[in-house]
């Protein structure tokens, strides 16, 4: 299999993402160039000729995701790659992808914002946009990689989630992780779990594009197979025909939420270390996890019982695990490369059981630990639970 280059490689995060995508079966990339995601295009193009994948550079990010949705309906696993300014433009078709229940992956290499910000500096400022950016009610799955290996692994996971639940899935990386060069291990093709598309295989005239299975997920067919189906971004019934009333809104849109919310337990993934005896837990995701793990190790050396909770899936949010930990520990420390986004979720889910301390990690980069160590020392001494989020300054 040319698509899976088994073995050990030293790869940049962005390049690892391409290898993950190709291993997952992605054969279409529609995009619009933007820093710091450019290496993904370059590598995908380089590799496309070996695996017969198609790449098209569209006129903007709006059309890039539109093309990806169209391509996905032909049966090709498809993705787009962007950064904050592009993600903003993609919100329109994130909504259409949700409504047409079209599997695809959106890789967002987060850079500093708002607006143009700093194109080549890392940030985690798009986390809430990925969750709430498009209008209307929907649920999303978002994964956050913190190493080049994660870029490979989580890209595959993203494709698997998108096929299983028929949704756009966001891979929320940041510039640091995208450009870090590390050793990654690519397993043999047989060892990689790939979720196939769930097709309808009944008679042609009986196909209903939005007739749901028990798990609320309808089955797909490809364009050109003779089903002559119709789908619309308007509120629709099982046939994909627009119906403008409240009953149909409930019938159509509630399952879009339930297919993720009801199955959150099987989607949510976290990685824990040293949480068994921890008095303070650092909750992190993406690039900041690197700092969190370093700080934890340094604190442990000086005898402080510190643990780490890394969010593999940021959306759906690991609510249950966070409240369990909040009940056990003095404080949850949340470093983010922004001025507070996921920390609001941590605070919501900790229900006042523990102090929630926000560390704006900002410009200092993903490997910086000084601020975290200072917060940890402070948090260990704190014996009362304070209201709201405590911001480290």
């Amino acid at each position: 299999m040319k698509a899976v280059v088994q073995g050990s490689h030293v790869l940049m995060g962005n390049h690892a993402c391409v290898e993950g995508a190709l291993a997952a079966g992605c054969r279409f990339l529609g995009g619009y160039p933007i820093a710091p995601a450019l290496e993904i295009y370059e590598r995908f193009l380089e590799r496309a000729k070996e695996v017969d994948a198609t790449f098209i550079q569209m006129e903007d990010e709006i059309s890039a995701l539109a093309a990806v949705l169209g391509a996905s309906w032909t049966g090709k696993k498809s993705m787009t790659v962007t950064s904050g300014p592009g993600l903003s433009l993609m919100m329109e078709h994130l909504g259409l992808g949700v409504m047409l229940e079209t599997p695809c992956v959106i890789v967002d290499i987060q850079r500093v914002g708002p607006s143009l910000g700093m194109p080549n500096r890392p940030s985690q400022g798009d986390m809430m946009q990925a969750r709430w950016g498009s209008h209307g009610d929907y649920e999303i799955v978002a994964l956050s990689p913190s190493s080049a290996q994660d870029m490979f692994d989580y890209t595959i996971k993203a494709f698997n989630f998108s096929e299983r639940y028929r949704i756009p899935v966001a891979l929320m990386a940041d510039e640091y992780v995208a450009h870090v060069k590390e050793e990654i291990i690519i397993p043999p093709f047989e060892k990689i779990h790939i979720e196939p598309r769930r097709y309808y295989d009944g008679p042609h005239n009986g196909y209903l594009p939005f007739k749901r299975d028990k798990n609320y997920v309808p089955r797909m067919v490809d364009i050109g197979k003779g089903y002559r189906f119709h789908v619309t971004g308007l509120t629709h019934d099982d046939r994909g025909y627009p119906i403008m009333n409240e009953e149909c809104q409930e019938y159509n849109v509630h399952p879009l939420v339930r297919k993720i919310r009801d199955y959150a337990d099987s989607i949510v993934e976290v990685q824990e270390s040293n949480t068994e005896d921890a008095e303070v837990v650092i909750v992190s995701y993406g690039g900041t996890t690197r700092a969190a793990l370093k700080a934890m190790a340094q604190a442990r050396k000086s005898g402080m019982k510190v643990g780490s909770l890394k969010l593999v899936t940021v959306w759906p949010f690991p609510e249950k695990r966070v409240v369990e930990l909040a009940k056990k520990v003095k404080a949850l420390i949340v470093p983010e490369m922004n001025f507070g986004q996921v920390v609001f979720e941590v605070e919501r889910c900790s229900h006042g059981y523990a102090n929630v301390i926000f560390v704006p990690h900002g410009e200092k980069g993903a490997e910086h630990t000084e601020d975290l160590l200072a917060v940890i020392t402070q948090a260990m001494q704190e014996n009362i639970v304070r209201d709201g989020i405590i911001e480290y300054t």
Partner: protein
Amino acid sequence: METLESTKLEVIHPMEDVLRMDRIPHIWCPGCGIGLAVTAFSAALEKANIDLNKVSIVSGIGCTGRVAGYVKLDSFHTTHGRAVAFATGIKAANPDIKVVVFSGDGDLIAIGGNHFIHAARRNIDMLVICVNNFIYAMTGGQVAPTTPLKAYATTCPFGCVEPPFNIPYLADSSGAVYVARWTTLHIRRLCNSMTEALHKKGFSVIEVISPCAQYYSRINRLGDGLDMMKFYHDNSEIRHGEDTKNLDIGFQGKIIVGKFVDRERPTYMERYTERLAQIKGAKK
């Protein structure tokens, strides 16, 4: 009455294999021309003698945006203005599919203008049918990028002050390989043009001038749908091969119709696969 009951016949619509009869009645107003454009298109699909299982239709938003929902093909009703972009993805991912974009002037030329010119430039193999009724009709008669100067709309109550786009000229200069314009009165010629364009390789554009009897005509006091058809009859002129520069439409002015452009250019996917094959060959 008894005899009527006993002689009740199963009436099958002649277009049943290309239209979704379970969606009729459609939403279009009396006097509207979109239904005529769909009739011409349905007939063209049958006349073109192509595998309809391999044809996909994509629409954007608006009155004409609803067409995809009535045509029995793999059909997509997408976001406002983005039908061409969505269709580009389909074509690039599976070049065996014949892609048709059926949408309105506001959808394709205003919000979707950028996608339109770039798909033409790339020469994506698709047929774009643009129904031009000079106004945003579904939202109640706002000014469009095609509204003629001096015509009234709800958002230009003193008459339109923006020069409109000349759609064939825009398509031609952006690189379209087939450009035609007809009114909904020229139903047979429109159908022939659509049949021809379904076989044309490359970015093909057919503009269909259509009466909006509910908004454009009412706001501008042009009578009902029939009056507008009479106007087309008296004021349209067939000029095949006319330079697209000369196709501006003034308020209640002459409408030049015909086939203006029919040329060959390699399509995007032809260039893409050819270049890929060259590179692969060179590697071996």
